[in-house]
């Protein structure tokens, strides 16, 4: 399926105006990438869209926003293009259309998965096992979760391959990856270029809240991931089974990670409620909100599960937690979750493109 022509043309119209202006060059990576060209193929626009972090600096700074007849709204048109691209490159596309746009769909899926887990806990309860393995055997969990994790990742990998082709990404070098990781790790593109942050929830005033909450979410998520990974290693590598004590890697990663994710999710929801939906992809507002809530729910139920250790609540809480994790995995290729993958890919591609352009100049 080829890109939506009207959306592409609108993005091209707006980007061509920017390219004749360039006042926003200092805000982010999009503008320096834009000025390398005079004409923009669809793939170039897809590339710019995925580089954009929706900081909105270039909206409030623009002398050509509506009611001016040029009616520029770069953050929105690039957000629309991103969402359209993720949907177009997803497989199956229908799932992406459903989960990107409709928070209710995600909630519905959660209900179904929850029911399944309650059933599983009742039906597959093991004879023995400690902690929550008393409710669901480790091997059963692994048997369920490994495919639920790996298959969506494989789908994302396929999308990324198509994406790379579409934007004309070149050979990947370590330096490009490092540069992209550095940019992502600092969320450089949400700094406003001046370090004051971005324009999200306070109109044309700059604040660093979005970067702060996103950092909490992202690093919290990575810590939780590290927690799970270290648990797996301890289980299989060291033969040391859960439950783990407080002073163990899974807990030392997981506890702060969970708290950070909850704080991050709360902050991001608050920001999203205050931000102007017209400067983002308005049609996926609900899906994005549901996704943040889901991440918060994963963390919160994880923490609750830990708090409930030894009590009778472990069973039901385990079902709820596993259900949220399962939904998170399942919707990975079809939800806002893909933004991390595409953004990173865009940053890698951009590092490559700007290096090549530098060499040519």
């Amino acid at each position, binding site marked *: 399926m080829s890109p939506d022509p009207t959306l592409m043309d609108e993005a091209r119209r707006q980007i*061509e*105006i920017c*390219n*004749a*202006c*360039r*006042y*926003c*060059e*200092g*805000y982010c990576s999009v503008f*320096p990438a834009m*000025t390398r060209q*005079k004409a923009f193929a669809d793939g170039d626009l897809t590339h710019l869209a995925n580089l954009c972090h929706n900081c909105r*600096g*270039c909206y*409030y*700074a*623009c*002398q*050509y*926003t*509506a*009611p*001016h*007849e040029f009616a520029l709204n770069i953050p929105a048109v690039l957000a629309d293009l991103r969402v359209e691209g993720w949907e177009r490159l997803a497989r199956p596309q229908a799932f992406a259309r459903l989960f990107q746009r409709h928070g209710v769909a995600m909630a519905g899926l959660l209900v179904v998965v929850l029911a399944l887990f309650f059933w599983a806990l009742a039906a597959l309860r093991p004879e023995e096992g400690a902690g929550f393995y008393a409710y669901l055997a480790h091997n059963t969990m692994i048997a369920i979760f490994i495919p639920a994790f790996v298959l969506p990742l494989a789908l994302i990998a396929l999308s990324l391959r198509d994406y790379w082709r579409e934007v004309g990404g070149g050979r990947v070098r370590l330096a490009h990856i490092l540069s992209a990781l550095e940019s992502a790790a600092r969320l450089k593109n949400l700094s*406003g*270029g*001046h370090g*004051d942050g971005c324009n999200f929830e306070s109109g*044309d*005033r700059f604040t660093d809240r979005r970067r702060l909450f996103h950092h909490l979410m992202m690093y919290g998520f990575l810590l939780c991931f590290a927690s799970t990974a270290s648990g797996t290693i301890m289980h299989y590598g060291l033969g040391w089974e859960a439950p783990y004590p407080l002073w163990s890697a899974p807990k030392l990663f997981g506890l702060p990670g969970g708290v950070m994710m909850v704080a991050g999710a709360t902050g991001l929801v608050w920001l999203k409620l205050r931000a102007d939906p017209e400067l983002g992809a308005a049609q996926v507002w609900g899906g994005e909100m549901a996704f943040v809530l889901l991440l918060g729910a994963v963390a919160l139920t994880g923490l609750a599960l830990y708090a409930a250790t030894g009590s009778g609540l472990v069973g039901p809480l385990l079902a709820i937690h596993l259900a949220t994790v399962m939904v998170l995995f399942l919707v990975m290729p079809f939800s806002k979750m893909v933004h991390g993958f595409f953004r990173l890919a865009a940053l890698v591609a951009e590092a490559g493109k700007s290096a090549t352009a530098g060499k040519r100049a």
Partner: protein
Amino acid sequence: MRDWPATFDLAVAGGGNAALCAAITAAEAGASVVVLEGAPKPYRGGNSRHTRNFRCMHREPMFPLTGRYEEEEYLDDLLRVTKGKTDEELARLVIRLSEQCLLWMQAHGVRFQPSLSGTLSLSRTNAFFLGGGKALVNAYYNTAADLGVKIAYEAQVRHVHREGARITHLEAEIAGQPVTVNARAFILASGGFQADIDWLARAWGPSARNFLIRGTPYNRGVVLRDMLEQGAESVGDPTQCHAVAIDGRAPKYDGGIVTRLDCVPFSIVVNRDSERFHDEGEDVWPKRYAIWGRLVAAQPDQVGYALIDSKSIDLFMPSVFPPARADTIEELAAQMGLDPQALRRTVDGFNAACRPGEFHPTELDGLRTVGLNVPKSNWARPLDTPPFYGYQLRPGVTFTYLGLKVDSKARVHGADGPIRNLWAAGEIMAGSILGEGYLAGFGMTIGTVFGRIAGKEAAAHVA
């Protein structure tokens, strides 16, 4: 307006750079201030919202400026473009004070960025605003609001009421309702009159009706005219405006920076009758940039056509609208509404007059035509490689020169000396320093320096 005091310490007419610098300075000195911005909120900030940089003296490199740019060189640059039509005392004042502006602006929310791509030649002299002039204006509005400055949008000042050597009040219309604004001091920072096409046509001649206005439609010179009618001293040629050649498809108002065209030196430029009328390769930027507005204004129907071929299409900044494009000169002529035969003749004549030689797009390369009545003295290459491209050119007015004459304290003068509680800043008084020509980035420098002076003087007056 319900929370307005009966009398402000200071009322500022206008809501661009000069007005905001004045309001912020006065508010920081403790004055209660109201800003009357004639435009609705989305269009606030006048021409200042279209700017990108200001020219700043500096004795050593300071971000974002490279190298050094000292008083004498700055003044020389100014004297060169104004051909001496400048008040040297005021000019030196602006130049010297420009040095402090950079830090002051940063302290009040303005952020800077390195010279934009395509403008490296300005990286030493001009500091670029991150996000451009609208970002600067936003920062100042936020700073002013935080200082308690009251801001009224759609607040058109109609009359500045003068009694002898004092101003008593302003008559304004706020969102369509007549309002009297009482204050103890007044600053006029409401820009020039270039958006009043009737006034332009009276001053320049009827052809001015075909001019495009590059900036805000709200600078109609209402306050300026009102003051001139009340005998305020004026300065600057009342018949002149600064005009550059811009894309003929630009909107009538507010097209801003993107409508500029940098293609002239690589083009041939013809008029409505397909005839060339001026040496396109005369000189480098910025001189040629400034003259083409007038040249096109002097042509029939105030229109010109810049034509290039595919050899040159990538040599200049991209245009906001795509050029007309055709595989033959005749087709291009037809697309642009020119006579194909006549254009063919002009192009053939031009091509035959070109001579082989080294072409250097970034320097005066001496590649000139031979034997033409209207020569092209640099970058003259035949138009022979299709596709051919064409842009329609129109004069785009940046600002007018007529203004209020001020002294070094920004005071406005009547026939018998200064008006005691009235100051002016920005475009409305820029003619006091810039009598002719233009120096890139100097408009914002004048507005910032004189805005701050006016704000300080007004606050001291009411303290």
